[in-house]
């Protein structure tokens, strides 16, 4: 006990004598941070700068000699191209629909799981499972095992009740992709919202209950305001992941039937059409879109973060 309290006092003068200079000490503090920081800048920032540069060139990989600087021409082409504009719209639709649906479902499930009942742990495990399937495998499951018009489970079950036998993916392609993503992302939202529910002030809830507040009133005036930031966090993190979704679109519809979103379009325009300049311009536009979302996301995370730091 005495050792820990007196040691720093006696050690301080010795240490200051040994310290060569303030600048060296600062570098010693920064040292452990540098490898990670340099690595991140090299691997993530430099390629983006390169994308930015390439986006100003007319460059088809099949005709490398015809490469030339075109200024903003790629951007003009991307923004006026009907297919690309459609893929921007698809991206927005896909992201908003999946995030909203999985948030609402996730909230309902979190509220159900917040109460005590027999087998709660088992139900929680069952609900998390869809999130822990490899995304391509999940997409294959929906495409072949559930949606297939001939032998899929959906039409099989409809068969029992004498219902119609729709071709799910051809009739409602975007909805088909969205449903599979909602299935995977609802558990994610549920986990975040459940953590939010369990961090409520129990004393405050109990006081409200003693004062005669109804279940709805407690939910509306205590739970929901408390959950607001968790809802925002779930929505924003979900948006960041789903805006970038490639696996489900690639697997279920291969970008066909009007389901090509921006990541798929970028992939296609350089991997199949070899249009490097156009692909880069589209990529830069995806980044601008993400920055808008990310600015909000960072604000939410930092407010939660500051609360954690001040609480500690």
């Amino acid at each position, binding site marked *: 006990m005495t050792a*820990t309290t007196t*040691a720093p006092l006696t050690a301080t003068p010795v240490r200051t004598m040994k310290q060569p200079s303030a600048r060296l000490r600062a570098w010693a503090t*920064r040292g452990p*941070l540098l*490898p*990670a920081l340099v*690595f*991140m800048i090299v*691997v993530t920032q430099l*390629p983006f700068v*390169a*994308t930015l540069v390439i986006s100003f060139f007319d460059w088809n990989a099949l005709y490398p000699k015809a490469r030339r600087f075109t200024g903003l021409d790629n951007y003009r082409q991307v923004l006026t191209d009907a297919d690309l504009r459609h893929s921007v719209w698809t991206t927005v639709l896909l992201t908003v629909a999946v995030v909203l649906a999985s948030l609402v479902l996730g909230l*309902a*499930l979190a509220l*159900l*799981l917040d*109460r005590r*009942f*027999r*087998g709660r742990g088992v*139900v*929680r495990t069952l609900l998390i*499972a*869809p*999130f822990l*399937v*490899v995304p*391509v*495998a999940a997409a294959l*499951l929906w495409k*072949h*095992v559930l949606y297939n018009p001939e*032998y*899929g*489970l959906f039409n*099989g079950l409809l*068969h029992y009740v004498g219902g119609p036998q729709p071709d799910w993916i051809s009739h409602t392609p975007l909805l088909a992709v969205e449903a599979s993503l909602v299935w995977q992302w609802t558990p994610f939202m549920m*986990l*975040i919202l*459940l953590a939010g529910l369990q961090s409520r002030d129990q004393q405050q809830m109990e006081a409200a209950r003693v004062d005669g507040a109804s279940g709805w009133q407690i939910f509306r005036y205590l739970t929901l305001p408390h959950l607001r930031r968790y809802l925002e966090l779930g929505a924003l993190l979900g948006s960041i992941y789903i805006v*970038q979704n490639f696996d489900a679109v*690639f*697997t279920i519809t*291969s970008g066909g039937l009007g389901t090509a979103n*921006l990541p798929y379009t*970028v*992939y296609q325009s*350089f991997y199949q059409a070899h249009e490097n300049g156009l692909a880069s311009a589209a990529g830069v536009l*995806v*980044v601008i879109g*993400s920055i808008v979302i*990310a600015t909000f996301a*960072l604000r*939410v*995370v*930092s407010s*939660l*973060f500051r609360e*954690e730091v001040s609480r*500690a």
Partner: protein
Amino acid sequence: MSTTILRIRRGTGLGLVAWLAGIVFFLPLAWMALTSFHSETDAGTNPPSFTASLTLDGYREFFGTGGGASPWPALINSTVASVVSTVCVLLLALPAAYALSIRPVKKWTDVLFFFLSTKMLPVVAGLLPIYLFAKNAGMLDNIWLLVILYTSMNLPIAVWMMQSFLAEVPIAVIEAARVDGARLPTILARVVAPIALPGIAATALICFIFSWNELLFARVLTGVVAETAPVFLTGFITSQGLFLAKVCAASLVISLPVLAAGFAAQDKLVQGLSLGAVK
């Protein structure tokens, strides 16, 4: 009296609803597992055959005894990419998190948010230059390129998670070790690591999951030699006659490591996925 009975009855009612929801969400997976044990002729029936006899043919077919491509190279590639990148992430993130929590640099929150912002930069934004670089450097279809990319993909998450775990290590203990003359590596290995170990393990598991799942980089940058398990699965995108049991077996086997890692990290899963914002 009657209100408490009502409340209890409503409580069990909602418990049943929760059970029902859990079963509905799990049903596609359960059906996939059941189908993987059916013969191909029983798997592709309408109405579905729930009580068909069980067989391991789907798994035999998947593992290549039926003459198809063997999944083992892909599984080994995925294991190498995921495990090695996770080790690299830990080696880079642990000291960084130390410099952001225990002995913080100036403006450490700014640095922390820089890491987070890189996570928000979409993958497609850097894909083309990385592809061109790999092509010119002769690194296409090379598993080590994926190791580098997966390390960069997971490093921000790991730095955030570890920062929040290391912040829980009491400063007094570290001070005591420092006074006793322990140097940085010793402090990290002997003092910090043991306390933060559960958190470090969870971080590793989450990084492993993200690397194992990744498709876009692997699809664009690998071909024959360095193909990973998700790329192998994309071979099932177009249906090829009777193959449902095989698809189910393949999807299940390839998802198994993720399911195992996910359930092992269950308690810290939210914290990892929310980048440490939710505890």
